[in-house]
């Protein structure tokens, strides 16, 4: 009897994992604040990038501040292949850098090991 329960639980767990990780879920989106024709956004790094999808307005000088709360060494770097940025993120410290918004489009970025992903949308 207990074996059947274990089996059912196992199947339910697997179903849950598939739904949770592979299913469609609303992405955590955000926009930057614009003050004096300057754009700024904060991204908190904790088990991923919050917001995961950041929408920026094109053609405005833009800065992004990353703050890594997460202790994982996986997240200690953030890499923007399209912008040539490979930035160290010390834990619990604000790291700010500028983003070139002259080109529009969707730009993916990731952690140093490419396990966590974020996206910039410039339009």
């Amino acid at each position, binding site marked *: 009897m207990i*074996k*059947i329960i*274990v*089996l059912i639980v*196992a199947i339910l*767990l*697997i179903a849950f*994992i*598939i739904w*949770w*990780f*592979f299913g469609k*879920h609303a992405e*955590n989106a955000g926009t930057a604040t614009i003050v004096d024709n300057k754009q700024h956004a904060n991204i908190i790094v*904790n*088990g*991923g990038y*919050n917001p*995961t999808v950041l929408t920026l307005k094109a053609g405005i000088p833009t800065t992004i501040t990353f703050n890594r*709360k*997460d*202790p*994982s*060494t*996986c*997240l200690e770097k953030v*890499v*923007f*292949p399209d*912008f*040539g*940025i*490979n930035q160290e993120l010390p834990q619990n410290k604000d790291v700010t850098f500028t983003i070139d918004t002259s080109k529009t489009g969707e730009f993916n970025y990731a952690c*140093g*090991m*490419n*396990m*966590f992903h974020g996206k910039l949308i410039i339009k």
Partner: protein
Amino acid sequence: MSVTKRFIIGVIGSVPLLLNMILSMAGISLPGGAWLLFFFGSLVYWLAGLPFLQTAIASFKNHQANMDTLVGLGTTIAYFYSIYAMFTAPKGTYFESVAVVITLILLGSVFEERMKTQASGAVEKLMDLQAKNAEVLRDGTFIMLPLEKITVGDIIRVKPGEKVAVDGVIKDGTSTLDESMVTGESMPVKKTVGDSVIGATVNTTGTFTFTATNIGNDTLLAHIAEMVREAQASRAPIQKTVDTISNIFVPVVLITAIVTFAVWYVFIGTSAVTALVFSVSVMIIACPCALGIATPTALMVGTGRAAKLGILIKNGEILEATHSIKTVVFDKTGTITVGKPQITDIISLQATENEILRIAAGLESSSEHPLAQAILNAAKEKNITAAEVSNFAAISGKGVQAMIDGQEAFIGNEKLANDFKTDNSLHEKIVKLQNEAKTVILVGYAKQIIALIGIQDAPKPSSKQAISALKKIGMQTVMLTGDNKLVAQAIAKDVGIDEVIAEVLPGDKAATIKKLQKRNPVAFVGDGINDAPALTTANVGIAMGSGTDIAIESGGIVLVKNDLMDVVTSLVLAKKTYDRILLNLFWAFIYNVIGIPIAAGLFTTLGLTLSPEIAGLAMALSSITVVLSSLLLNSTKLPTNTASNKKVATA
């Protein structure tokens, strides 16, 4: 808390646990029993291991999973089971596994971090080459100023042993400079008034002053550093495939762990504990990290090493494209050849070579024609003073004449020969030189032709060696030029190029590259100034030419030195880097493919099982191996330029 600190706590907690394990095998048990194990196991779990679980929970909320998910979950299950077991079956706890696994994985991270800093240090090392300050002329005196205070147009003095602060042009003085740190050129270069100097290079012999032309982010060094930084942050296209795997990797491992438990417990009928151990081992041994770091670390080491050699590889895409290159197309002028006409032959009929050059230089001394420059340069190289000339006159369409030492002297093209009585052997010699695509110049003195001078835009010293090295690695070589067929074929024959496409208009170069691409992927080597369209059309554009901005922009690979041998080096290095990426990926993949089934107990019948501790060790080793394999790129053998080094050394 830093990884290193967590690791130290891990060691402190693990040692007593391991000691207990060994002693209990010998039949000795430490006082305190299960409580002692609980104490040390908890120390490691809560202080060193908890951050894994924290990240796991945070990423879980974002629907993401990674290495921390596996380690965090695996150790947590083992830890809480052990607490339960402490009361029910005190002999069956797994505290030492929890502690050892956490410690080993942290050890892996510590090593990895160290090696990654080593792998990514190229840019910092480059920028460290800069001088910190310089002697700048202000209000008539030279004063020491920090680098940031220098502006364009400043006059800067450099003494022997000092570093050139910024890019500029020598205003006064002569010296020899060691440019190896920027261009990779190992031999010191002689520079004099009007020559450009590069920031961060070292002045070795004389004192000179120069005018600053590029400062701050505009210097060649800054451009190089920026390019390396961008290359190191880029991703190779193959990474996309890897990403698809790593995105599903962790959830799939979690599912495998559940299946493992269910199969052992439900179908095979082992105890829940045995099934749990197999399941935890699966979580611990799986290593998504190795997959994640396989490409970036190799890319970093490869591009970093290339930069040190004066070869700038723009990004991972170029690196991957280089892998499939079968044809290398060269521009002729300035790429295979020096780009300036040079004297290649002096056929003396009467006078000595020095005397011929003295007269020829005298006659050409006021001319700015490139051929005249070739003669003047040759005389200058041999320290021959040009003869004094008077009564200078042009011989229409043929050359010039003048009086030298009381006698009539003349110089000009082969048409001059018709004005003199010549024998057949002279004509034969002229035709022979012309067949070699050389321009023939006749020198006469006292109504006699005294010499024939052959002038040609000669191949660079390293061209022949570079072409044969390319052939050795299986490349088809093609020369593309706007020059006439005869000249092109002669040069091609001299350096050993397979195929010549001559008389191509500058605007048609890109179209010709396209045609060649129909056969197989093409790399184009040019100097970047007028070859920009061809450079961008080719699968890989290799721009030569002292790091000009245009070259940096249009080339996928930029060679700082003007040495053709670097084409070979860059292709070989790019290939080796890409091969290393593939090897790393293969290793990371195969490790998981073999490791996970063993951990799941698939081979138990063959006597092959893993404890969670061994699984932890294997995982730590697997990612270390990948980084180590990338670092090995720093010491792989590369073709080097033996020809030009020897030449300079004996000169």
